[in-house]
């Protein structure tokens, strides 16, 4: 037992809420289930903040680095003396940071949903699932070893499935839920293979042993080579596939836009702030292993991240469903984080990218949750997801308008909002490592500003549409979380991340590099300016631009036909050329053999059933005859 043992409660409280609210779902009248869930998460949030305070401030001896602490650990499975699987709680800078991120966003979403989900059928069920998700996500970030992480990783996938499919009567919702589950599950296969290779070669699952840069585990790596890369590099690439699936990196991103079928608070919680950054967290967690033994794997991470951020940003400029724009923007921002990890090195100032990635993860969680919740308030007011049904809403939704604008300025990287600081660190890290990657990210920064303000102007400016009723501002229970998150978006940029969350736990000096910051502000302002010209007052310009890029525009609008490509591969190729022959073999050969045996037995028994005559003396005669025959055989033949 040590002074952090209470942290075990942080994941367990949501778990108990899930069990109790889930079991008593029918009996909880009105908002009771929601209030229980919110209260439980409130306690977990308080404990997380307390832990952050204790870990970063009160327990920290000035001038030393942050070390990781195992708050709690038990042996869950004892298979052999060498192979045991533990469950526990690991406290270190990134897990404490993630605790704060997850509980903050989750708590805000819990409060917000009290208003947003009011009167929905299965209100208590919604809160039960939210608690299950919070439990899984907290368990994931607190995992002490790879295997425990894998368990919670899958639990996160399940709860995401349940929440996307919350409106399970809607065919599009449950097919989106299935798609998300299958795609991420497919990626998790890579994760599992990676875990097996990695722990087979190092002999441990434990993060503390694995990631100790001077430990035996890293030294013992190396191993045999396969196709020019060491086995460990392959293991790390496989693990990254798992992370890419959860974080919606190209080409495993196809589930994220569809996942917007879930309720908007769910999108804010899972598909913006927490679950989708699990992949970033995974790479950050294993970062010493990546940087010490698998630089090639880090290259993969960097290029996949850069490509995804560009790809998603281009698609985001063409979409009209406001939640989908935000979904692609999320992919793009996570691409930034991955890129930043990919260009980082271990230790000291070389670890700038690592710090920047976690920093951006933190600020992104705030402003993206804010954007989604703001979009939820807009949808709540006009009952549509399509920006063509919106316009002029700034008069009706003043609070949503201001907070949304803050979030847009934050993501566009305008100082002094937090996005500016984290994005600047990422750009500096990329600039020091690879000029091409820097160029891509620089371009994406401008694109981000453009598509966010396109969204903003389309929703809040322009002329009014024909609304069914006059749009009205959301209730206080929804706007207060918006204000709190707006506060976080503005001020979280001033947190001294370079002192807190670094690759080796030691603080290093970091300052804003104005040589990079000023161009990045300029490109953000340029993006905003272009969006202002095109979308602030409705004019023919957007259509003209779209027409002049007609071919490219159509490709981007159709999301570059990636979904169609997957459908082609699965339906046309896999179904036709693999599944069909296999199904034929199963129906005709396997089933045929079984049916043949059964038919043969029926045939034979039908023909010999006359032997069962019911006459006892006939039976006795056969019996005696048999005995005599056996006697004769034993005596004369054998």
């Amino acid at each position: 037992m040590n002074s952090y043992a209470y942290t075990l409660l942080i994941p367990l409280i949501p778990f108990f809420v899930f069990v109790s609210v889930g079991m008593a779902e029918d009996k909880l009248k009105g908002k009771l289930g929601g209030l229980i869930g919110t209260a439980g998460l409130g306690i977990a949030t308080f404990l997380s903040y307390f832990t952050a305070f204790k870990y970063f401030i009160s327990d920290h001896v000035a001038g030393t680095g942050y070390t990781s602490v195992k708050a709690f650990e038990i042996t869950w499975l004892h298979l052999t003396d060498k192979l045991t699987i533990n469950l526990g709680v690991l406290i270190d800078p990134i897990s404490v940071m993630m605790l704060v991120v997850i509980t903050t966003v989750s708590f805000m979403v819990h409060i917000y949903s009290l208003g947003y989900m009011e009167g929905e059928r299965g209100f208590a069920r919604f809160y039960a699932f939210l608690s299950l998700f919070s439990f899984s996500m907290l368990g994931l970030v607190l995992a002490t070893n790879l295997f425990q992480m894998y368990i919670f990783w899958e639990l996160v996938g399940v709860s995401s499935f349940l929440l996307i499919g919350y409106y399970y009567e809607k065919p599009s919702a449950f097919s989106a839920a299935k798609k998300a589950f299958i795609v991420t599950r497919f990626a998790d296969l890579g994760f599992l293979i990676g875990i097996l290779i990695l722990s087979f070669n190092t002999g441990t699952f434990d993060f503390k042993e694995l990631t100790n840069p001077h430990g035996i585990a890293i030294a013992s790596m190396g191993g045999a080579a396969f196709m020019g890369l060491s086995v460990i590099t392959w293991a790390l690439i496989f693990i990254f596939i798992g992370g890419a699936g959860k974080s919606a990196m190209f080409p495993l991103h196809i589930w994220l836009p569809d996942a917007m079928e879930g309720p908007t608070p769910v999108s804010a919680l899972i598909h913006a702030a927490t679950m989708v950054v699990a992949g970033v967290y995974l790479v950050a967690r294993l970062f010493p292993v990546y940087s010490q033994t698998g630089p090639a794997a880090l290259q993969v991470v960097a290029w996949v991240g850069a490509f995804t951020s560009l790809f998603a940003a281009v698609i985001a400029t063409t979409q009209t469903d406001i939640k989908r724009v935000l979904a692609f923007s999320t992919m793009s921002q996570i691409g930034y984080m991955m890129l930043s990890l990919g260009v980082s090195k271990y230790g000291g100032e070389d670890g700038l990218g690592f710090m920047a990635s976690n920093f951006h993860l933190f600020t992104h969680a705030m402003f993206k949750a804010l954007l989604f919740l703001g979009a939820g308030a807009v949808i709540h007011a006009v009952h549509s997801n399509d920006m063509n049904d919106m316009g002029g809403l700034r008069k009706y939704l003043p609070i949503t308008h201001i907070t949304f604008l803050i979030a847009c300025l934050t993501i566009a990287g305008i100082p002094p909002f937090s996005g500016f600081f984290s994005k600047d660190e990422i750009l500096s890290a990329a600039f020091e490592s690879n000029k091409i990657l820097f160029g891509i990210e620089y371009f994406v920064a401008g694109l981000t500003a453009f598509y966010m303000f396109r969204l903003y102007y389309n929703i809040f400016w322009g002329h009014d549409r024909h609304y069914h009723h006059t749009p009205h501002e959301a209730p206080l229970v929804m706007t207060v979380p918006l204000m709190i998150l707006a506060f976080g978006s503005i001020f979280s940029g001033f947190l001294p991340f370079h002192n807190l969350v670094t690759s080796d736990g030691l603080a290093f000096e970091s300052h804003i590099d104005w040589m990079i910051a000023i161009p990045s502000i300029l490109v953000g302002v340029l993006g905003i300016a272009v969006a202002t010209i095109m979308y602030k007052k409705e004019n023919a310009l957007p259509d003209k631009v779209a027409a002049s890029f007609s071919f490219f525009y159509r490709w981007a609008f159709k999301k570059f036909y990636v979904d169609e490509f997957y459908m082609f591969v699965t339906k046309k190729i896999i179904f036709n050329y693999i599944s069909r022959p296999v199904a034929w073999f199963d129906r005709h050969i396997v089933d045929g053999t079984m049916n043949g045996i059964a038919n043969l037995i029926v045939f034979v028994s039908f023909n010999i059933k006359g032997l069962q005559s019911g006459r006892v003396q006939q039976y006795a005669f056969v019996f005696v005859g048999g005995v005599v025959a056996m006697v004769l055989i034993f005596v004369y033949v054998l």
Partner: protein
Amino acid sequence: MIDNIPLNAFLVISTLMFFIGIYGFLTRRNLITMLMSIELILNSVNINFVVFNKFLYPNQLHGHFFSLIVIAVAASEAAVAIAIIINIYRNFKSIDVENLDQMKF
């Protein structure tokens, strides 16, 4: 006197009784007669037990005990069999096995 009778004589008697019993069991139509045939078979076995005990292990009694057990079992078997036969008679008004062939597929 009994000591002068050779072993084979006993075995011939027992074998004859056994096959008479088998023959009776297979040919008689009356359930009671079939039951009596079974008793013949059992008794032929009893004779074998006693005779082999006498000729092979004259100082021991195992064979005798076996015959006693067989007699006891035969008595209970007869009791059960007669109870069954009475019930059959009540249902079919006959104890002829030719009529009792309902137990088939």
